[in-house]
């Protein structure tokens, strides 16, 4: 990577005779030992060479027979060919969903719907390792995260909403909650299975049927989920999955046959989708981009804060809408925090996502890698100081070093734009008021982090943040019971918790 040349020239290559005590002192040296490879077995999951669409309970080919390839971003090898949905397939899927909603799912008693969802949750748990390995291969995320975060949370989401299916009257006191009908759902590539569960579980619990389009770079876990639906004997047409490019997503959300649209992805595409439903009666929820501030006060527990900062921005390669990409540090501790961060970066293991020791895996696609590279170059060009640890990157695949920028101004692109990569910008502040002002100085408003040992300040900061999720002395925590979603241009509507049901019901008088 051309960009690294200047930085690397400053860095000494590790040689075996260096004293162990000499590493990790903020000078960017590599760790003086290597971890033995600890690869997760790929054999737990059977990956077919070809996958179809999942429509009306059956696997079918695209109407024109078209396919596209999905690539392992860590190796650049093609994993499988996947049927590429056409507008005709979208029609077919929506018809199937409508039929299923009218004839079976919509009238099925809540307690019976619940049991299907419980079944799905159990199947996801039972087949968790298959999902984790497949997810890691298709998306590039570390197996540690797919195994410990994505898959268990996905199962937990189905479990949580299963229990709501027959208790909707308690979620909306004084009202009767009716399903909206057919939900069109478009999800991103950063948490493929988890986003699927966020979308499908509440929709089904409330009596809707769904047509879901996974991202074109990560369709496989959704197609394995289709298998789970069959295993659960879910009635045909209740869940339909149609992989394809973004124009198929637009076709889906614009289709007059859908009653509700749910989208997670970039703010730019979110605006297009909001435009697509303008003037209709469709319900809409958008979970869009972010540029979260992670604010560290001088009285914070600094070592815990450093762990939180690292988790906040390098979790899932930083490909997280709520990533803590803007670090706001109180001036008095800025130097200390920066040094501690540089030390910590030296211990982050970047590489094979299937290796159980890997902290930062592969960037999801070449296009995303190019976007990150471009923005990092802009950071350098605009005068911020870049730091990257001297870690080896695999020869193949889309990898990017954990990156830290200091001397960043609010006007820099790296401080304003969502990078969606492992890139942290460090800014400073003096007073709580200044921290609030800087944190809120963005069109986004998805999440924020606050680190301080003072309770009243936590609550004051939490109140002042114009963001949908505030993590205090922690970061990037998720739970099915916990509503998630943004303020301002980070979207509207909430997913998770009782609030997540609201987007999938129409309230009528008793």
């Amino acid at each position: 990577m051309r960009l690294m040349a200047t930085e690397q020239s400053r860095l000494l290559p590790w040689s075996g005779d260096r004293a162990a005590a000499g590493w990790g002192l903020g000078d960017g040296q590599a760790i003086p030992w290597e971890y033995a490879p600890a690869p997760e077995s790929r054999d737990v999951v059977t990956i077919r060479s070809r996958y179809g669409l999942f429509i009306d309970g059956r696997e079918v080919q695209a109407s024109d027979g078209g396919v596209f390839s999905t690539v392992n971003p860590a190796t650049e090898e093609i994993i499988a060919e996947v049927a590429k949905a056409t507008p005709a397939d979208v029609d077919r899927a929506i018809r199937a969903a409508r039929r299923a909603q009218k004839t079976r799912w919509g009238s099925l008693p809540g307690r019976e719907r619940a049991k299907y969802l419980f079944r799905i949750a159990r199947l996801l748990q039972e087949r968790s390792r298959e999902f984790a390995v497949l997810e890691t291969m298709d998306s590039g995320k570390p197996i540690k995260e797919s195994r410990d975060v994505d898959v268990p949370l996905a199962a937990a989401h189905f479990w949580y909403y299963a229990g709501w299916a027959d208790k909707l009257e308690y979620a909306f006191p004084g009202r009767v909650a009716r399903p909206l009908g057919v939900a069109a759902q478009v999800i991103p590539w950063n948490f493929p299975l988890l986003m699927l569960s966020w979308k499908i579980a509440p929709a089904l619990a409330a009596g809707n049927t769904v047509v879901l389009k996974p991202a074109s770079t990560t369709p496989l876990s959704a197609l394995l989920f289709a298998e789970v639906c069959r295993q659960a004997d879910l009635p045909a047409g209740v869940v339909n999955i149609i992989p394809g490019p973004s124009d198929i997503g637009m076709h889906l959300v614009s289709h007059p046959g859908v009653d509700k649209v749910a989208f997670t992805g970039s703010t730019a595409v979110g605006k297009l989708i909001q435009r697509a439903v303008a003037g209709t009666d469709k319900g809409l929820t958008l979970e869009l981009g972010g540029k979260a501030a992670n604010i560290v006060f001088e009285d914070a527990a600094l070592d815990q804060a450093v762990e939180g900062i690292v988790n906040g921005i390098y979790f899932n390669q930083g490909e997280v809408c709520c990533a803590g990409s803007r670090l706001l540090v109180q001036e008095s501790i800025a130097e200390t925090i920066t040094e501690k961060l540089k030390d910590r970066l030296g211990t982050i293991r970047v590489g094979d996502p299937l290796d159980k020791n890997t902290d930062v895996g592969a960037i999801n696609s070449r296009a995303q890698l190019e976007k990150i590279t471009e923005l990092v170059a802009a950071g350098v060009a605009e005068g911020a100081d870049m730091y990257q640890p001297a870690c080896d990157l695999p020869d193949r695949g889309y990898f990017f070093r954990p990156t830290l920028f200091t001397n960043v101004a609010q006007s820099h692109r790296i401080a304003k734009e969502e990078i969606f990569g492992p890139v942290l910008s460090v800014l400073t502040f003096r007073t709580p008021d200044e921290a609030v002002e800087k944190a809120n100085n963005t069109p986004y408003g998805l999440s924020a982090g606050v680190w301080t040992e003072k309770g009243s300040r936590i609550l004051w900061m939490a109140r002042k943040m114009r963001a949908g999720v505030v993590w205090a002395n922690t970061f990037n925590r998720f739970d099915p019971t916990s509503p998630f979603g943004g303020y301002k241009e980070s979207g509207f509507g909430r997913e998770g918790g009782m609030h997540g049901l609201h987007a999938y019901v129409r309230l009528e008088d008793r």
Partner: protein
Amino acid sequence: MATRKPAVKSLTVAKSPATASDADRIEVRKTYKLYIGGAFARTESGRSYLVSGADGSPLANANRASRKDLRDAVRAARKGFSGWADRTAMNRGQVLYRVAELMEGRRDQFAEEVRQAEGVSVARAREITLRAIDRWVWYAGWADKIAQVLGASNPVAADYFNFTIPEATGVVGIVASETSSLLGLVSRLAPPLVTGNAVVVLASETRPLPAITLTEVLGTSDVPAGVVNVLTGRKRELVPVLAAHVDIDALDVWGVPDELRTDTELAAADSVKRIARRPRGVTDARFDWLDDRASERPEWIAAYLEMKTVWHPIGV
């Protein structure tokens, strides 16, 4: 003003019954102005339009607000928002209740204006007015309860304290009902207001006068300056500006003319505005605002709320 529109000379404003002693007295007529940042301002454009009663008789000139007036109103609303949202919930409830108190004292005036604007009977106009007053009271009571109904403590599967609280969205643009000049307006104005939003209202174009009289109540009832701003004028001219303004966070499209609705929502999408629509199948003209069940809805409050979820670890 009078030089521009000769029709003004023939206006008959809500008259009190004449008595023998006022027979020779020349009535003092009211100028209907805009309400921006707590001040009763004339439009900077110097334009007005003639407002007629339901029977066709001319009532008064209303300001024909410009896009500049609208931008000023949004700026005033943004300024008013933070202070209003930071009030305690109980305080906001009392302020809304105060609006009801002051309307009660002027109910005959409101009833007469509604009668003229909407062409309804005296009894009906009175019923509408009293219901508008009661609606303020109903929504006022929600101020310190909505967080308990819509908020939550969430039992996450780890050692964290996790809670969700509703907060006001920010600045709300309201395109008011075209037909229900007072009750329709109050029913859509109180819900965003009670939780701390600031609003910019485009009043009914054809029946704007009760809205302006309402601002005189708002101006004297402890609603802080800038929290409610009311414009009169041409919807065709102002709705697109309101919809496209990036400093408006949410838009009530209830009173948007059908032919403008799609374009309005297209413009609103460019800044990801929350959009509050009429319930499916409901028309503005046919909606029964006197139906309490239909017009008193916590969902209408929730439409202008953001849910904020806060996490904190539990440990020693």
